[in-house]
């Protein structure tokens, strides 16, 4: 398994952990108001876990970690990034739809945040899929 595929597995797991953390912390709050400390906290946790995850993989395969992306890596990244961009676009349009239907800015904020998380997860999942099944 290449370094980039391992990295995608780790990042997909971290995204899931972050999404669950966000849902658990936001769900009990009344009025769906997105509290700034929670949003910042989730982003900080995501960043720290990402750095730790990447370092952990790099320690076991330092040569692969330092290797530049080759043509297959770039093709996988391009295709996964393109498709995940569509996931984000659909999510943002749906989020705007919630606002237009009168659910307010707070719900739209959560919908956009979830779209970002979903798009990131899609990118890592597609990366794994393309490495495993071909691109």
């Amino acid at each position, binding site marked *: 398994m290449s370094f980039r595929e391992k990295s995608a597995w780790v990042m997909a797991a971290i995204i899931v952990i972050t999404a669950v953390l966000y849902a658990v912390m936001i769900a009990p709050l009344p009025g769906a108001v997105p509290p700034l400390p929670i949003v910042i906290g989730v982003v900080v946790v995501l960043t720290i876990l990402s750095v730790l995850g990447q370092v952990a993989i790099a320690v076991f395969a330092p040569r692969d970690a330092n290797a530049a992306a080759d*043509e297959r890596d770039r093709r996988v990244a391009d295709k996964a990034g393109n498709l995940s961009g569509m996931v984000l676009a659909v999510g943002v349009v749906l989020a705007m739809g919630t606002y237009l239907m009168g659910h307010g800015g707070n719900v739209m904020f959560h919908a956009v945040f979830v779209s970002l998380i979903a798009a990131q997860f899609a990118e890592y999942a597609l990366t794994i899929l393309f490495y495993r099944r071909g*691109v």
Partner: protein
Amino acid sequence: MAKKPPITNRVRELREAHGGVTQAALGEAIGVTRQTIIAIEQDRYSPSLESAFRIARFFKVGVEDVFGWEG
């Protein structure tokens, strides 16, 4: 399973015929990772035209001696 690309190849066969060149050595010679050579040999990836020529040149054969079309 993903649809196999129509391009076939004899990379593994040529590696073995050239004294068992390793996937890593071939990858390094043409500028791709060992995993990409594995993917090419398993028909999970069709290399770029440039890499195809580099592989053929590495084995000192023509591109058509390495790659075929099964479309």
